[in-house]
C-alpha cells in the first residue's frame, strides 16, 4: 500500500512539473525519458520477460509514427490518433510479427532485424520526403500537451508491466524465456503466449511511435524507422535490467542524461563516445543497474518474477 501511495505521489509531482518549470530544456528531457521508457518497456515485454530477442522494434515504432501523423493530419484528435497508431502496430505485427515466431533463437533476432531493414528501405522509397505536422499545430507548437501525453503513456506502460510482473501471464512469459521446451511440456501453449507478448509489445511500441510523431514537429519519414530505434531499447533495457519493471526506466534516465552530457561537451564526437559506453555497459553490467543495486543492498534481487538465471 505504501508503495502505491509513493508511486501516485511521484506521478502527481511529475504532472505538476509543467506548471512550475517553464524551461523547455527540462520538459524536453523528461519527454525523452518517457519516450525511451515506453519503447524500452515495449521491447522488454517481448525480449526481457519472454526471452524473444527482437531487433526489429523500429518497425512497429515507425508504423506508429506514420499512422499517427496520418490520422492527426486528417484532423483526428491526438489521443484518438494515438490509439489508431497503436492498433496499426498490432495489425502489422499480426501480418509479419506472429509468423516470425516460426523462427527460433538467433533466427528470430536476425529475422526481426531483416524486417526492420525492409521497413526502412521501403519507407525511404515510398515516402522520400519530410513529414510535416498539421499546419495549425506547427504555428502554436507547445511542449506542455506533449509532456502530458508522454507522461500518460509512460505511466500506462509502466503500470502494464508492473501488472505483468506479478501476474500469471508474466509467469508464463518467464517460463518460456527460461526453458521453452519445458514450458511446452507442462502445458503452456508457447505460441499463444508469445503472440500475446508480442501483441502487448507492439501496441506499446506503436504508442511510442505516435508520441514521437506528436513530439517531433518535422522529420524525414524514414527517421522513426531508423535502426537505432531497434537497438537503443535493447541497450537501455540491458543497462537497466531486462525483465524488470524499474530496469528500463532507470536505463532510460541514464541513457538520456548521458547522451545529453556527451552532446553538450563533445559535440560531434558524441556518437563515438556513445558507442564506447554502449560497449562498456554490455561488458561490465550483464545484469543491468538493477542487478548492481540489488547486490549493493545485499539482497539477491534477481528477476522480479521468479527464475534465477537471466
Amino acid at each position: 500500500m505504501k508503495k502505491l501511495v509513493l508511486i501516485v505521489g511521484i506521478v502527481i509531482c511529475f504532472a505538476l512539473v509543467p506548471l512550475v518549470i517553464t524551461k523547455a530544456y527540462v520538459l524536453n528531457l523528461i519527454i525523452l525519458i518517457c519516450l525511451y521508457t515506453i519503447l524500452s518497456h515495449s521491447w522488454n515485454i517481448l525480449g526481457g520477460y519472454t526471452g524473444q530477442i527482437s531487433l526489429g522494434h523500429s518497425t512497429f515504432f515507425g508504423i506508429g509514427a506514420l499512422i499517427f501523423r496520418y490520422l492527426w493530419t486528417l484532423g483526428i484528435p491526438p489521443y484518438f490518433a494515438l490509439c489508431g497508431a497503436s492498433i496499426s502496430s498490432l495489425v502489422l505485427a499480426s501480418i509479419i510479427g506472429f509468423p516470425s515466431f516460426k523462427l527460433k533463437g538467433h533466427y528470430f533476432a536476425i529475422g526481426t532485424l531483416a524486417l526492420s531493414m525492409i521497413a526502412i528501405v521501403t519507407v525511404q522509397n515510398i515516402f522520400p520526403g519530410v513529414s510535416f505536422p498539421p499546419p495549425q499545430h506547427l504555428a502554436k507548437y507547445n511542449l506542455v500537451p506533449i509532456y502530458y501525453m508522454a507522461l500518460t503513456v509512460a505511466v500506462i506502460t509502466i503500470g502494464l508491466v508492473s501488472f505483468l510482473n506479478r501476474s500469471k501471464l508474466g509467469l508464463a512469459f518467464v517460463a518460456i524465456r527460461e526453458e521453452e521446451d519445458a514450458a511446452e511440456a507442462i502445458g503452456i501453449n508457447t505460441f499463444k503466449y508469445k503472440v500475446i507478448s508480442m501483441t502487448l509489445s507492439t501496441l506499446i511500441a506503436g504508442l511510442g511511435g505516435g508520441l514521437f510523431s506528436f513530439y517531433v514537429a518535422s522529420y524525414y519519414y524514414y527517421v522513426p524507422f531508423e535502426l537505432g530505434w531497434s537497438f537503443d531499447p535493447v541497450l537501455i533495457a540491458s543497462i537497466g535490467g531486462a525483465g524488470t519493471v524499474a530496469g528500463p526506466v532507470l536505463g532510460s534516465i541514464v541513457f538520456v542524461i548521458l547522451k545529453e552530457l556527451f552532446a553538450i561537451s563533445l559535440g560531434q564526437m558524441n556518437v563515438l563516445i556513445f558507442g564506447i559506453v554502449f560497449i562498456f555497459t554490455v561488458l561490465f553490467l550483464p545484469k543491468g543497474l538493477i542487478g548492481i543495486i540489488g547486490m549493493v543492498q545485499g539482497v539477491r534481487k534477481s528477476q522480479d518474477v521468479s527464475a534465477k538465471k537471466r
Partner: protein
Amino acid sequence: MLRFIQILSYGLLNGALYGLVALGLSLVFGVMNYLMIAHGGLIMMAAYITFWAFFYTHIDPFLFILVVTPLFFIIGWILFKILFQSLMKFPEGEKIKNSLLISFGLLLIFSNLAILFWTADERAVTTVYSGKVLDLFGVRLPYIGLGGVAIAIIVIIALHLFLTRTYFGKAIRAVSLDHEAATLMGINVNKVCLVAFSIGFALAGIPGVITSLHAFNPAISFDLTNKALIVLILAGVGSIKGVLIGGFFLGAIEAAGVYLVGTPYREVFGLILFVLILMFRPQGIAGKKA
C-alpha cells in the same frame, strides 16, 4: 534479352563480392555464435585504408590485399582479447545479444570515426583499369568486377583447403559443431575462437580493398552488413561453400529486381527474399536442418 544478360552479369559480379563480404561474418557466427554486425564497418574501414594507401603510394589495391589481410588479422586478435573474449562464457542467447550490442557499438564508432576523419564524401580508387571492361559477345564485364570474382574464388578455395586439410582448420570446424566435445579432443577452444575471430577480421579486409575500387562512403558499413546477414541466412549458418552460392543468388535476385522494378527497389527484393527464406527454409540453401 541482351539487357537482361547484362543486368544479370552485373548481379553475379556483385554476388561474388557479397559472398566475400559474408564469409567473415558466417565463419565467426558459426564457430562461436557471435553476431558481428560491425563486419560492414570493418570492410568500410579497409576501403578507406586502401584509398589512402593508394593516394599516397599508388600501390595497386589488389596487391594491397597482401598488406590488409595480416593487418586486419592482428586487429581482430587484439579486439577479441580486449572486448570479445569475456563473452565466451555466456549461454548462446546472451552471447548473440551481447556480441550484437558490442558490434553495434563498434559499428557506430567506425562510422563516426570515418566521418570525422574523412568526411561523408564519396571516394573511390581509380586505377588504370578502373573504367575498362571486357566485351564478351556484347555483354560488358568490368575488369574490376572480374577481379573481384577471381579474388572471391581464390579466397574461398584457400579457406576450404584450410578448414578441411589442416589440423587447426578441422579444429575450427569441430568447435563450431560442439564446444565441449572439441575440448575433450584436447582442443583449446578459446584459442580456436581467437584465431577464427581474427580470420573473420582478415576476411573483412579483403572485400574492403575491392570495395575501394567502387564508389564508397561511411554509410556503406550498414549496407554491407545487411548484405552479409542476408547471405549468411541464404547460405545456412556454418556452410562455407554455401556462402559463395548465396552471394551469387542474392546478386541474381537483385538483378531480377532491377530488371523488373528498377534500381531503387533493388534492396527490397533481396530483403524480401531474405525473410521468405527465413520463414520457409531457415537452414538456407546449403545448410543442415537445425
